[in-house]
């Protein structure tokens, strides 16, 4: 079952992110690896974007550059009016702290902190955070807030990670293979959480995956291959996460 594209992002205004001619070269031993070879990409407010591609296509590198984790070898990334590529390390830290929420394949929860405390890590340093309990409510884990990561299943850990990412009310949520370590059923639950964040909070969301099924829930799908954009597709009809299966 499909549904009409809802919450259509505003593409008339300026993009949240504007990446131009991004290249990224790693020196691995004596070999240069060209992870990105001149990528142009815009990300609009409220948009749900899926970056699709096989491993080694450069999608993680692109996400890292957008999120201020890494600087491109050449090219520019603008976040609203700011040029991220000119930022110092300290400025990038503040940028991440204020505007970006990250979700990783392996959750990266702090094992010595409970679910709620993992979220408080972020709310403690954010300027206008939501209550940690509300963030957990959003991923439907409020009843498990005093559990440590070791006491949670993989899917639950990832939902806590999502709650942690969105608790600061970030402008953008970047998810790198959020279901990569999960089975299909659990993965869907996690995607539902991301979908809800995008829909209810209007958070611009970019999800990296190699799983083409997931791209059906996006507004727009950008395919990467060999460090370059191989194609862009706009889903006229988005599929709800709970209807996905793989």
């Amino acid at each position, binding site marked *: 079952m499909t549904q009409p594209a809802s919450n259509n992002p505003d593409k008339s205004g300026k993009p949240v992110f504007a990446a131009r001619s991004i290249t990224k070269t790693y020196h691995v031993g004596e070999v240069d690896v060209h992870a990105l070879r001149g990528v142009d990409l815009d990300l609009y407010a409220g948009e749900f974007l899926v970056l699709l591609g096989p491993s080694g296509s450069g999608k*993680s590198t692109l996400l*890292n550059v957008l*999120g201020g*984790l*890494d600087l491109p070898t050449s090219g520019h990334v603008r976040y609203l009016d700011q040029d991220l590529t000119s930022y110092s390390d*300290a400025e990038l*830290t*503040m940028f*991440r*702290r*204020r505007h*970006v*929420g*990250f979700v*990783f*394949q*392996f959750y*990266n*929860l*702090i*094992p*010595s*902190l*409970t679910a709620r*405390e993992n979220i*408080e*890590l*972020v709310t*403690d*340093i*954010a300027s206008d955070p939501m209550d940690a309990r509300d963030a957990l409510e959003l991923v439907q884990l409020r009843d498990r807030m005093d559990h*440590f*990561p*070791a*006491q949670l299943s993989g899917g639950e*850990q990832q939902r806590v990670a999502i709650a*942690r*990412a969105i608790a*600061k009310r970030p402008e953008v949520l970047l998810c*790198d293979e959020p279901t990569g*370590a999960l089975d299909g059923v659990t993965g869907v639950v996690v995607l539902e959480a991301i979908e809800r964040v995008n829909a209810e909070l209007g958070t611009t969301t970019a999800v990296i995956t190699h799983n083409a099924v997931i791209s059906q829930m996006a507004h727009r799908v950008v395919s990467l291959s060999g460090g370059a954009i191989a194609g862009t597709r706009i889903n006229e009809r988005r599929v709800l996460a709970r209807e996905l299966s793989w």
Partner: protein
Amino acid sequence: MRALHRKLFRDLIKLRSQTAAIALVMACGVATFVMSLSMLDSLQGTMDRYYEEHRFANVFASMKRAPLSLAERVREIPGVGEVESRVVEAVTLDMPLMEEPASGSVVSLPSDSREGINRLYVRSGRFPEGRGSLEVLVSQRFAEAHGLAPGDGVNAVLNGRLETLRVVGVALSPEYVWLIPPGGILPENKRYGVFWMGREEMDAAFDMKGAFNDLAIRVMPGADEAEIIERVDELTAQYGGLGAYEREDQISHKFVANELEELRAMTLIVPAIFLGVAAFLLNIVLSRMISAQREQIAALKALGYSSGEIGRHYLSFVLLIACVSGVVGAAGGAWMGRGLTRIYVDFMDFPSFEYDLHPRVLLLGFVVSAVAAMIGVASALRAAMRLPPAEAMKQQAPQNYRPTVLERAGLQRFVPLSARMIIRHIERRPLKTALSVLGIALACAILVVGGYSEDSVDYLLDFQFQRVQRYDVEVVFGATTDDRALSSIRALPGVLDAEPYRALPVRLRSDHWQRRTGILGLTSGDGLYKLLDMNGTPHALPEHGVLLATTLGQWLGVGPGDLVTVEALEGRRPEFTAEVAGLIDDFSGLAAYMNVDEMNRLMHEQGTVGGVYLSTDPQDSQSLYQDLREAPQVAGVNVKASTIKSFRETVSKNLGIMRSFMVGFSVIIAFGVVYNSARISLSERSRDLATLRVIGFTRREVAIIQLGELATITALAIPVGLVLGYFLSWLTSQATNAELIRIPFIIHPSTFALAASVVVGASLVSGLIVRTRIDKLDLISVLKSRE
């Protein structure tokens, strides 16, 4: 090279800074071990050779005056090898560099001065030759203290006449390794000199022709020294014999033996601590490495490597470190041992220097370090060997944490998140945390051990010289004299108060226990010489009977009310029994006290005085010293201030050398432990820290969380270390069982403060290094890998 060996070397290179820190600590252990043992061997060997080559006597006896024929009779005692009869006389000296009078002993040389017992080693110049002249050899320490060289003259009062001794050479003697004045217990290089003069000149100067007053005896191997001493005493009794004694009671040797004893105590404890710490460091590094290499171990096992091969692989990693440490430590230990031996040989003024490094010491050093390393890693190795391959391939579940004590007590609102992370991390691995705390605490403890001996000596000096010996000057009379000498001294300008005393050499007996010592006869226990026990509690001088030091009482097996037999070794040498009036637990160990009138009564003498304690007016000291120099009865003058100064210059210097070694080593230990703990904790937490950085924590904020743990562990370790240091110092003080002086067990607060600050300093430096590592955290790669 097999692939597994290549892995070994790459692992070593990857963990190079940590393995280097461990190797350094372990090398320090081996080095202290090799250094101490080789130094002890060398000093003992040098001393033995010196004694043997210079034919140091085994038995000594002094008397008033005996005919030369007596020496022949002593030679006939079974077991006696060689006998040398000598003339030894006390003199007062007039040294231009000194305000206060100095004293000396003049010892006669045999007719052929290159032969005989207690042969001299002539450092410079020659033996005395000119007949009728007053040519002398002077002891090296005294010559150094006064800048004397061949050709110089020394003014001395010989037998009541002022003469000039002509220095023709500087010499060392096994009999006077340390220059300790008669009646003293501490070396005084400046105030007491020994001179050697031709026998004929001595006979003439002291009217001793055809007679002697001192015997040096070499006994044959296996002879019964006690038996010989008894026979010598019988023979010398009618000539005013003072009682023969063996080498162990010879004051210079006693002091040398005491030094070696103190060094021996150090050799046991310090290397043990170092190797223990190194073993512990290896354990934490290897455990960490094995848990990080779970998948590799599983893969190796899946490929067909046996558990034994895996175990051997990691064991070689450890043994390689132990080997490198062994080589570096042995080389460093030999180098330091050689240097330190030289310092001590100079310090003790042995004429030759030979450094003995026995191969067994090196071998033992190696074996000890290898064994310590293997003990350290046994548990980690077992874990690697037991790891089932299938399980190891699985992803490790997140580590289990639980709320801390504080939170269980409902206090979490007051504990910030970062603190909660730190506390939970520490609480989750209590054993690991305890070991880290223990490691740092040990470093702290070594520093306390290094400082305690100095504190104790300081305390002792203050106690003995300020509170017990309250006089300023002690005047020793040449021969026991009577009250008239006392009144003439009392009348000298500058003397505020004078109190006579008599030091009586005795042999105390109870059942079959006997002990050669001295009884100090005093007029009061509360005058210029105050009787205080260790706690500073005053003791009254008993009217009757004898007050014994507790250790002496224990030695003799007597307590208050018991009787001891006193064999006087002076005057008519009467033997009498005295009741033990009490025991005084003081620092002297072998002291005994009596009322001087009671002493004289028991000696069947009247008003005999051996010396006098003076309290003086510092303004008149110069003229007083001049008067004392000229007073005929005066054989020696001990100025307390000079004694303290001289002591500080010799003994404290020795302690200072030891202490600087200890501080150096402790810094290495502290740094090795702290740095390793910090690095390991960083590698365990790098993923968490990178996550924090990604979600927007600054480097500073992340560093606070990471370094907070280091700070907490250091803070926990310091009090533990101080307590441990107190305990180890106590152990060392028990191991140093010096009979000469009982060293009190005192640790000054500043020693604790220094120990704590060194550890804090090492933590700060490690923290800074870790901080730079945190700054370089690779955010992306950490996130891409699973735990």
